[in-house]
């Protein structure tokens, strides 16, 4: 984003457009301003600057920073949320879909996408290691608004039925691997794998109580099964639940690890692809004709 030919040749676009801008020395929250390259040439207001003082320029940059980050957050709430709902939908919506095979398989593969692209954008252009966390926080904000307003407020499904999957530990892990390794390849391999492996243990603290057993008229059911059965979803007959299917019979009850490792391997590939998606779209070149 915002790169042009002048950047590639080493010049700084900010110094050209806002000669007196302290943007290179202090954006939002900067305290105190720190001298940055070329700052010597920007020490005073230059004729033609839109700002009357350094303080005014600093305020403008800070405001622009806040507007940018808020706008990005809102856009990601929408974009990432739509992607998530369309691809992992029911496995995340319902407590009786959070199984040992598909939930830990589908979610990481589908959710490592936007964070990978966001990591390219925030890391390559800003050296900010919060792309994944930023995206997952936006997703969870959208999901909680959706679950509370739509699922509970409009259709009266209790939150015990429709709580969203906890994602932040996975996202923090992905971001910190990038920060420490400074390598997108290592992040793809180590980070994506961890992103997948952390889903189940990180959520088990919420999910475990709903996997307690109960006898219902001679049939064994988990509490999650009972919640899903009791709260009527007219358009969701039981047979469309895609849970606990597959041929991992030889792994007995220990299928979570297998599913998570599988998801991890696929996530590595997905990360590679989406890092490059981020690369493709972190540019203004598609807008040059405007």
């Amino acid at each position, binding site marked *: 984003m915002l790169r042009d030919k002048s950047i590639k040749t080493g010049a*700084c676009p900010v110094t050209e457009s806002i000669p007196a801008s302290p943007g290179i020395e202090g*954006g939002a929250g900067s305290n105190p301003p720190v001298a940055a390259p070329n700052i010597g040439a920007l020490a005073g207001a230059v004729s033609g600057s839109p700002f009357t003082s350094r303080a005014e320029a600093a305020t403008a940059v800070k405001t622009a920073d806040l507007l940018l980050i808020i706008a990005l957050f809102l856009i990601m709430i929408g974009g990432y949320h739509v992607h998530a709902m369309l691809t992992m939908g029911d496995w995340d919506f319902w407590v009786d879909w959070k199984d040992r095979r598909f939930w830990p398989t589908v979610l990481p593969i589908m959710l490592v996408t936007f964070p990978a692209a966001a990591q390219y954008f925030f890391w390559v252009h*800003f050296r900010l290691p*919060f792309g994944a966390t930023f995206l997952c926080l936006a997703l969870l904000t959208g999901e909680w608004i959706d679950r509370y307003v739509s699922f509970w407020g409009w259709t009266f499904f209790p939150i*015990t039925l429709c709580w969203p999957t906890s994602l932040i530990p996975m996202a923090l892990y992905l971001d910190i691997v990038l920060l420490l390794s400074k390598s997108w390849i290592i992040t793809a391999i180590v980070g994506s794998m961890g992103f997948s492996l952390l889903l189940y243990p990180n959520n088990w603290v919420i999910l475990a109580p709903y996997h307690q057993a109960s006898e219902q008229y001679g049939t064994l059911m988990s509490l999650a099964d*009972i919640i899903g059965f009791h709260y009527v979803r*007219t358009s969701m007959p*039981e047979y469309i639940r895609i849970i*606990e299917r597959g041929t991992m019979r030889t792994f007995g009850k220990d299928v979570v690890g297998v599913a998570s490792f599988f998801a991890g391997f696929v996530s590595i590939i997905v990360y590679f692809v989406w890092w490059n998606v981020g690369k493709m779209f972190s540019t203004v070149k598609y807008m040059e004709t405007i």
Partner: protein
Amino acid sequence: MKTTMLSSLARHAKRQAGRLWALGLAAGLAVTMAATGPADAHGEKSQAAFLRMRTLNWYDLKWSKTSVSVNEEYEITGKLHIMNAWPAAVHIPDRAFVNTGQPGAVANREAVFVGGQFAPRALQLEVGKTYEFRVVLRARRPGHWHTHVQLSVETGGPIPGPGQYVDIKGNFNDFTDPVKLLNGTTVDIETYKLGNIYLWHLLWYVAGAVWIAYWFSKRGLIGRFAWVASGKGEEVVTPQDRLVGAISLAAVLGTVIIFYAITVSSYPNTIPLQAGDFRNIPALAGEVNDGPLKITYLGGSYKVPGRELVANFKITNDGKEAVRIGEFNTAGLRFLNPDVYTTKVDYPDYLLAERGLTLSDNAPIQPGETKEISLTVQDARWDTERLSGLAYDVDSSFAGVLFFFTASGTRYPMEVGGPVIPTFLPV
């Protein structure tokens, strides 16, 4: 001058045409919205008539109560005949789910029994057989709700049964749904561990927000971009930042691992989600097609303008008692012969045609006798329930169950049906 003014007006109108069109569209939409009412049905009329007639036949339906208080239980009971006339357009119900059609979770489904078998998951039903069912509901949300039983068929979709309005009174906040666990404790699934859900999400949400705030506070976006763009990207992240990252990583992993271990020890006996279908559901004996009657369909017609189905049958009574035709039941509608049903029938009025069935010969069919009878089914409900679309269906055939009665009160339900020829003009 006149021409000039008209030209000017025309130019002005042309310039404003887009705005006027948008304004008109918005006004039109607003008017449409004002005219909408609450959506309290479930599309039961939307499916083609032949599908509703030929897939399932619901009879002996009863709603134990139509007015209940929050937390009060009520039942829908009845019999479900899987029609031999099952159409090719819908997959047979070898994987089906006895579902509840209602506007959301207004009542909790405590139990469903099919053939006496508890059926919380998909089950296999066989064409030509009849099953008894019982649905137990627990009133949850106050209101006036249209409630059905419906059969959802894999790849075939939902097939709603007849609906009845149920009034739920009381306070929604009083609702509880207690479930007893195997360890002996009883929990309310409406709120169980709700605090735990909020706590963990809040904790991680704050952690994520703090992480973003920490980095954003370090020169925001524009400042960092300029710095990175100047070719000094390696200097932007300091060793201290990396130390913060390493400590954060340890904290995240430590928290996940420690609390995972604590949770595992707190809930040592958990089970996976239960999956798998129910098979060998016991069917009812002595129900549809078990009577001592032979019925041959001789053809029929459907008069579209008069909403009148005429079906001709040759019926042989091989029983020991004389029988009379009392009712024709199809797609949840009941067309009664008033000479047989002389008392009020308890059934949703919009589905009950108390005088809807007429016979060419209303005299009983004696034991050993064979009769040709022309049966006329006529009622406005054909139209209101959109069965009159039969004439335009891709398979112009009807089906239903005829109920024969003896003087001693024995009932013989018999499946009938076949192709019908529509008559489009008044004759």
